[in-house]
């Protein structure tokens, strides 16, 4: 099964950043019924219905049950090419076999689905179809059922064929006895002109002789008996074909009334099969289906980026986060994981839009019908727009209520003074909207805004260190990569005196001259 996002949904750049291909590969099962799945974002009603449906099935089925259902679903033949022929009443004999195979496997699935039946009314239709096919076919649906008369006709044909074969063998023997010539297949045969047997060959009534250059072409001259057998064979064949064609037509007519119900059921079966795949993957990897609220907020418990988790394993710190309606601001030191937080949120939202289970312990939110992200950009030459221009354009769009707007390093695209001013204005504006705005920032001015939910990335706990950190690798390993809400005013003020970038810079292999100057400035700040 090839699983991919609709092309217009996410840019290739974002998909690569978030390693979404890796995540989608978990769903690529070998199920003929669904050879491919194109995922696209769903509108609210569709999304809510989808998760409600799959969540209900998930709650009703045991683990071993789900595995059985997926295994059984693998045996379902794909009937997409057959359905239009069914609608036109043009099913052939082998189509009946294929259709019957589907009905049989679906019947087995229905038995396994007692706790969560797919479509009881639709199932009844399938049972009737199966009964009809059983009546009109034979030998496990592999042949068209024959009356005694039809069977006799077929026997007569076979008998005739045997007689004919015997007759031809008899001719071969007769010709050989008369001429010494082995007239076995193929014919005509070539023989050299100067042959002792040439007189005998010419005299034989069962062969024709034609001279071509230096060879003779010898061909059969079938006698009346053989011609008669051929004619009789043709006649019986025609009769048999007519009878079988009429039977097939009749079966097509009798099956047709079931077509619409069957076609609907078939689509439901495909949807349900996909649901089983989602549930199987969800359980195998301990993912979760989101729960939805009517309030405009979002709670994520132990969420993570699949690609990051695969690489870092136990070192990957899952995200615990609560986003409130309005403006949510994440402030933190460089390399503390702010952008990863933003990407994790966006990744989870995008996957939920497409009806997928997400890597998290729990997610509760209002349905993300509209999600928009602004990552750090260097502008767009094609569109003749700078990074700043892109960012301002981003905020020029109309956004509906309930939207999720995510921005990384708000207005880093311009000078710090004006960037801070614009950030304050934008954040203030979003703080009054009926949506969730989330941004990361370095601008300390923003920290002082009243009507925002402020969060920060935790610093390295000094108590956890036995000695001073001396290089960047060690710094990364000690970083907690957790965020916390900042509610206390003292804590807010402390953010205004942030020296972290200077301290982090000292961990890099800069020249000693530069490091001395940084230290001088740090000491000056400490004294202030």
């Amino acid at each position, binding site marked *: 099964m090839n699983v991919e996002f609709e092309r217009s949904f996410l840019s290739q750049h974002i998909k690569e950043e978030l390693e979404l291909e890796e995540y989608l590969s978990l769903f690529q099962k070998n199920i003929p019924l669904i050879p491919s799945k194109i995922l696209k974002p769903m509108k609210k009603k569709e999304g809510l219905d989808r998760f409600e449906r799959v969540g209900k099935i998930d709650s009703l089925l045991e683990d071993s049950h789900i595995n059985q259902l997926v295994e059984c679903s693998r045996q379902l033949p794909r009937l997409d090419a057959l359905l239009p022929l069914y609608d036109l009443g043009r099913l052939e*004999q082998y189509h009946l076999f294929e259709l019957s195979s589907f009905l049989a496997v679906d019947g087995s699935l229905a038995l396994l689905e007692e706790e969560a039946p797919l479509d009881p009314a639709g199932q009844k239709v399938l049972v009737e179809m199966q009964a009809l096919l059983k009546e009109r076919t034979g030998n496990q649906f592999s042949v068209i059922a024959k009356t005694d008369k039809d069977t006799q006709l077929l026997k007569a044909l076979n008998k005739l064929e045997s007689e004919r074969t015997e007759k031809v063998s008899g001719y071969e023997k007769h010709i050989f006895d008369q001429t010494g010539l082995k007239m076995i297949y193929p014919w005509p045969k*070539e023989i050299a002109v100067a042959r002792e047997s040439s007189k005998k060959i010419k005299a034989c009534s069962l062969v024709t002789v034609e001279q071509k250059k230096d060879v003779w072409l010898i061909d059969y001259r079938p006698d009346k008996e053989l011609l008669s057998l051929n004619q009789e064979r043709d006649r019986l064949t025609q009769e048999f074909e007519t009878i079988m064609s009429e039977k097939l037509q009749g079966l097509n007519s009798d099956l047709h009334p079931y077509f619409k119900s069957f076609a609907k059921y078939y689509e439901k079966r495909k949807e349900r099969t996909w649901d089983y795949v989602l549930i199987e993957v969800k359980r195998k990897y301990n993912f979760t289906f989101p729960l939805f609220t009517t309030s405009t907020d979002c709670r994520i418990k132990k969420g993570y980026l699949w690609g990051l988790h695969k690489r870092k394993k136990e070192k990957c710190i899952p995200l615990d986060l609560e986003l409130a309606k309005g403006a949510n601001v994440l402030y933190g030191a460089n390399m503390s994981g702010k952008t990863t937080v933003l990407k994790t949120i966006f990744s989870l939202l995008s996957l939920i839009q497409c009806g997928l289970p997400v890597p998290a312990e729990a997610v509760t939110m209002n349905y993300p019908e509209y999600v928009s992200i602004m990552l750090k950009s260097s502008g767009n030459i094609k569109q003749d727009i700078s990074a700043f221009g892109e960012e301002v354009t981003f905020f020029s769009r109309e956004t509906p209520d309930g939207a999720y707007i995510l921005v990384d390093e708000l207005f880093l695209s311009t000078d710090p003074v004006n960037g801070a001013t614009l950030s304050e204005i934008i954040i203030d504006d979003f703080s009054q909207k009926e949506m969730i705005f989330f941004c990361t920032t370095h601008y300390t001015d923003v920290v002082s805004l009243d009507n925002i939910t402020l969060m920060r990335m935790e610093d390295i706990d000094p108590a956890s260190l036995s000695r001073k950190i001396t290089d960047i690798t060690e710094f990364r390993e000690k970083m907690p990569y957790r965020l916390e809400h900042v509610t206390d005013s003292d804590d807010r003020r402390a953010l205004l005196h942030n020296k972290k970038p200077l301290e982090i810079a000292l961990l890099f292999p800069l020249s000693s001259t530069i490091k001395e100057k940084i230290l001088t400035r740090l000491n000056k700040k400490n004294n202030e």
Partner: protein
Amino acid sequence: MKTYCFIGTDKNAGKTTALKFIYQNMCIESSPSSICLTSIGINGEESDQYDGRGKPPIRLIKDSYFITQGDHLKSHTGKYATLRIFSNPEYSGNYIFGKCLCSFPVILEGPNIGHEVAAMKKSIQDFHDVATLLIDGSVDRQFLAHPAISDMFYFAMLISERKQQQVKARDFLYSLSIPQCEEWMRVWIQREKKDTTRSLLFNENGKLVYHGKTMPFCDRKLQKKCVEMIDTPGVLYLRGALTHSLQEMLSSYNYFSIVLDNFTLYLNVSTQPGKRKRFEPGLYLLYPVNVKTLFIKQESDFDRALLPENVPVINLFRREYHECRI
């Protein structure tokens, strides 16, 4: 289950005639129910090159098995039992594996792709009474030469007055005589060979000098590496046609051993008669040709000394032929 593949050097070489002949004799000597027939798919050429006919039907005998596209069974309702369907997405077409309930003529059209043929073979082996699979093949389907697909070959060869066709026949007979490579060459090659491999160049110590993933005749890097080794021993494995340009280039590599993956790689080249340089390197096959019988259709005289030794040769269209042991 044994698989016998029928290959013709030309469109009118008598391949299908040979198939029918062998099929009929097998039905007499063993039983129709032990035989399954199929054909390599139509390669975009619906009609015969020389006389405009379509793919000819083959008259199947009651109780034989077959594999063909569903479309070819439309007028044969009731004459067969459907046993298995090979369809999308695992297969590129809609192939029906069936058993004949009576004798009837049908166009056989099986898959065109190596792994599909291999998968079908594995699948029908469940039916234990199928002892023999006969495949009506084509010389340009290189996958047929793989031992996983074919156990032995029946070849049909046309001998005519046309110069181009004579060169083809000569090359074909020569390809049947190319020996299998030595065991140590085989070990080197199997060690490095992957599905995507098109060429491998080893030095005399078995060290891999180059691993090519593009067709050898247009692989500039391969050709450059070969030039660097022109005066030193080496083994060059090719899984692409030994084209005239490649032959020209390699003809003076005295110290090289060229190992073709299979004999078809010697055949799929232009047959313009012309002067050819003497080919100095040793030429071998990784997978040898197991020839069951050579069927010839003779429209002009030819040197019978060119025929391979120890291979039955039959001209079905003439009065005298060697007995064919099936």
